[in-house]
């Protein structure tokens, strides 16, 4: 059992709570960097995919987990990021500039979208963002001269200073590149969290009225959350576009929006870990199901059964179970286990019990 005794303000906002935590994250970083040597090309590609999902997930996490605004439309912003990045590249901008520029364009789009809709709450906001996601698909098709319509766009290989990061030719290189981007975004996320802005996000999430009373400009804070969130998601979308090679409106459809939200809930809302754990689930679930199906087929000697949509069916079931039995997600479960061992033998089941609450209507305010 370790007690961290904070004596200064700096101790409260340190990146790592104590030295051992820093050590474990350093170890994790080393494992992540060494991964391509162990995994082989195929699994490295899958891990890259997971990292890209995690980047997009962090963007949504900042919005939902930190500032408390639910968005069912983040695939639209992934699309903006991907299209603007690739279009900039085809206009001759090198990737290393096009990627952040794509992110910034997405962030501006997100901020502009947020300005009128920050007045909305809860379900109204969720459906407004849902509408954006649906519209984006059709807008991409309609704007064919720019976006290539249903034929989509082809993303050129990523090239930085003459090094080619082809998905197949240089799988580990691409993995390291995206790992580096993911780490940068994690650092940005952590720093936002401990800056005044991050505290404002949390205040707005927990109670808008008290945040306002503390002198926070609620509308501006919410719009900022949207802009930063969509910036990260736009970068994730641009990477996903490059990873897919060819993409069209289907790559960023409503299902992706919804999956993204479901993913961060499975992972654990409000934590960076949650974005990564959820991305692992989303990234490896299809493989795991296919693997289990083949395994069962071998075991019981039947031909591999093909049920269309089995994947999404299982995904939905896992989600229902998570919401019912572990609303804090995978990371929440991990915290519970860790606390059990840290406090051993003093951990009690009721430590994480949800406080009983009764809803009041949001229609009278």
């Amino acid at each position, binding site marked *: 059992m370790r007690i961290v005794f904070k004596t200064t303000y700096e101790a409260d906002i340190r990146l790592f709570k104590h030295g051992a935590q820093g050590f474990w994250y350093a170890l994790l970083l080393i494992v992540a960097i060494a991964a391509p040597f162990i995994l082989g090309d195929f699994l490295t590609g899958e891990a890259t995919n997971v990292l890209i999902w995690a980047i997009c997930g962090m963007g949504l996490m900042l919005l939902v987990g930190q500032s408390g605004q639910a968005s069912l439309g983040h695939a639209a912003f992934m699309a903006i990021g991907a299209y603007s990045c690739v279009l900039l590249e085809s206009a001759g901008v090198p990737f290393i500039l096009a990627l952040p520029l794509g992110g910034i364009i997405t962030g501006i789009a997100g901020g502009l979208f947020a300005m009128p809709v920050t007045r909305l709450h809860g379900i109204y906001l969720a459906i407004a963002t*849902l*509408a*954006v996601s649906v519209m984006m698909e059709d807008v991409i098709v309609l704007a064919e001269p720019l976006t290539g319509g249903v034929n989509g766009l082809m993303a050129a290989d990523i090239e930085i200073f003459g090094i080619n990061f082809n998905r197949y030719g240089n799988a580990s290189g691409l993995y390291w590149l995206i790992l580096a981007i993911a780490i940068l975004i994690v650092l940005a996320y952590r720093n936002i969290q401990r800056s005044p802005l991050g505290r404002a996000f949390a205040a707005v999430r927990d109670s808008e009225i008290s945040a306002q009373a503390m002198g926070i400009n609620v509308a501006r804070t919410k719009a900022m959350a949207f802009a930063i969130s969509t910036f990260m998601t736009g970068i994730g979308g641009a990477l996903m576009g490059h990873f897919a090679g060819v993409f069209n409106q289907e790559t960023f459809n409503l299902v992706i929006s919804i999956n993204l939200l479901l993913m961060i809930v499975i992972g654990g809302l409000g934590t960076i870990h949650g974005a990564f754990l959820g991305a692992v689930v989303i990234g490896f679930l299809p493989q795991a199901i296919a693997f289990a199906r083949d395994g069962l087929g071998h075991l019981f000697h039947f031909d591999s059964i093909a049920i269309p*949509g089995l994947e999404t*069916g299982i995904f939905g079931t896992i989600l*229902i179970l998570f919401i019912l039995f572990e609303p804090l997600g995978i990371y929440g479960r991990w915290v519970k286990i860790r606390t059990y061992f840290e406090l051993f033998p003093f951990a009690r089941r009721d430590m994480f019990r*949800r406080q009983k609450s009764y*809803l009041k209507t949001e229609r*009278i305010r």
Partner: protein
Amino acid sequence: MDLLQLLISGLANGCVYGLIALGFVLIYKATEAVNFAQGDFMMLGAFLTLTFANSNELGLPFWLACILAVAVMAVVGYLVEALLIRRMFGESQIAIVILTISLGIVLRFLAGVIWGHEPQSLQSPLAGKEVRIGSLVLGFDDMTIIIVTLLLTLGLYLFFARTKIGLAMQAASQNQLAAYYMGIPVKRVHALVWALAGGVAAIAGILFAAKGTIDPSTGLLGIKASAAAIIGGFGSLPGALLGGLIIGLVEPLSSRYVAAGVSQIMPYLILLIVLIVRPHGLLSQVRAKKV
């Protein structure tokens, strides 16, 4: 005349959207939760009617099949509340949104396993019959949809405004704790309204199936219906119908007078404009608290 024809079929479409939106609003009005599986309830109701009524399936008389489907969907709604939603009592709204989205995914998957992904059509006695007034053709199916929707909206409106249980539902949503103090069995009231929403969804499903084919992805119509509910003002029953009608009318008109591709966008564009101008919908249900 052509325009009038377009308007009538748009009205009928809008009524179906309105009926699904009605289910959204029912649950929201009484439990403050949003059921994103409402479209999938409708899809299930349509498939159940098809199973009961079609001659190559059970072949029951059409009206009996409809009543059975409504009853089964009411039971499904009740069970969903009793088994899933009740465990979430007092949890945040977004948690229930995510739960119902995943429930919708599972329901679409199950429907695909049971009924397959091929579009199927309901053998309805309404199909093909029509009344001609001059050059205007009034399909029986369109007329039935419009009449049933109007009656149902009126009935539900009176139910909420006049009956004791309807008032109890409103009270249960406004303040759960206070409702308990007043002796309202909040959980049972919630289960009842989910059953009611299941029944309404089944009716919407029957009317939808009477007009065209159904397949598991029909459930995704719920997304458009949720837009309708928001346009009308979430929590208002006439608003749900109004929103549905607006969407139903705008779709054919914009594809005729603007461009074919635009009709997909229009409902959502209207939604955004309405939300920007009136953040709580046309018939807003949000009131400032009197202190």
